[in-house]
């Protein structure tokens, strides 16, 4: 939010609306929502599919870039159009997302 204030007009119309009405961004934008439960469970909402899946790492595509989860014995507990659930021992979460 600070970023958008210092650089007005950097986001699109949707983002400005979201900011104006103080709405959660993930409900309007395609920003991924990531929920981590301890180090054993992780859920990514608003994903765009799996790019790479191995037991040591899972890379998930989102509208803002890739999310990479690293760990051991990673398994995909469920996958639907809206969310991906990942189970296993999560050690590292890499959010190389584009700003905004």
């Amino acid at each position, binding site marked *: 939010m600070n970023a958008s204030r210092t650089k007005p007009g950097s986001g699109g119309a949707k983002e400005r609306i979201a900011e104006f009405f103080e709405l959660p961004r993930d409900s309007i934008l395609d920003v991924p929502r990531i929920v981590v439960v301890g180090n054993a469970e992780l859920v990514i909402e608003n994903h765009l*599919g*799996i*790019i*790479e*899946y*191995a*037991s040591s790492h899972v890379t998930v595509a989102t509208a803002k870039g890739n999310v990479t989860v690293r760990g051991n014995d*990673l*398994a*995909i*507990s*469920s*996958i*639907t*159009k809206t969310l991906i659930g990942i189970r296993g021992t999560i050690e590292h979460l890499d959010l190389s997302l584009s700003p905004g």
Partner: protein
Amino acid sequence: MTFQSLWSHLEGYVIIRVTGRAVEDFINEAYTSGVELWNLQRIDERSILGHVYLRHLPELGKILKRTDCRGRIERKIGLPFLMMKLSRRKGFAIGAILFSVVLYLLSSFVWFINVVGCDKMSPDTILEFVAKQGVKAGVLRREVDSTSLGKAILAEFTGLSWVGVNIKGTTVNIEVAEKTLPSMKSGITHLVASEDALLTNMIVLSGEPLVNEGDTVTRGQVLITGVILPPYGSPGETSDKRHVIHAKGVVMGRVWRTWQGFLELVHEYETETGRLERAGSLSLGSHELHVGPGRGPFETFAEEKTVYEVPFPSWIRIKPVIRITTTTYRETERFVEITDREEAFDNLREKAYTDVKSRIPEGAKILDEREELKYSSIEKKWVYTLTIETLEDIAEERREDPEVGH
């Protein structure tokens, strides 16, 4: 089991192994075309394991072809597969159904009849009667009317005061209560003295008194007889004409009960020290094999022997006698205890009182208690005597068979 897994069992699902260069493409294709995948696991670089619903399998096949992957079903789980298996094994399914049907049919019959509560009567007579009424093994359960059957049994057997019939499963339980009839019908009942006593007073309710107030009687003596002879000189003065009744009455008498014991200050007794030795021997005819100490290993000991004879089946003709004997020797020790005179006397008194009081019947009235301590020059010991005098009903019933009677 969660609801989710219960549902997936009902629907049926498979565990599938997907192998291909780009398995990720397969996953993405699957969820975008509505095929639900869960519990995906990486097996090796080229393949994964995943769970898929049975209804999605045709769609899955197309996706596999499109993404250039190969799929192999590893396991089939759930009800549809079970049904398939069952339909393949028709004989088994039919057998299972037949079994339930037969079990149901058999459970609607009566198979057992129990009679409970017969004391004097034989249960077989009741079973016979019940069978005549149409209740026997193999009869349909609903044809048995428990209330009317109970009434019929009660009407048939006069010796019963209550009959309860209930059906539990395939068993008919007949519970029976017999009438307890007074036992005075036949035979003579005398009243005899239960103790040696001096009669104080006597109330004769029925029967002929043979003793008078003030008499001394001995235990077992007939007080009131149940045989009434016709008056002397009357025409029927033979034993055949005697009148037999149940003698009744109250006979009060004074009874003396005593207890005697020596007042001893020196007690000798033996106790076990706890040390023991065991010996065993095996004997065949005159040959013997002995293990352990031969004779008493202690100075003083108690010996305990158990002999076990090896049994042989009856078809062996020549029976060698094989005996296994185990002997246990327990070491004992002799003790001499000298008690204080006061204490010994108290102990003796207590013993005397408990012994005499235990012999006094309920309802007796204690008239007098006398204690005596005398030196007996013959025994060279002090003799303690306790005498308790009571007033009690000493009449005791004694039955006599009419054939044996005088």
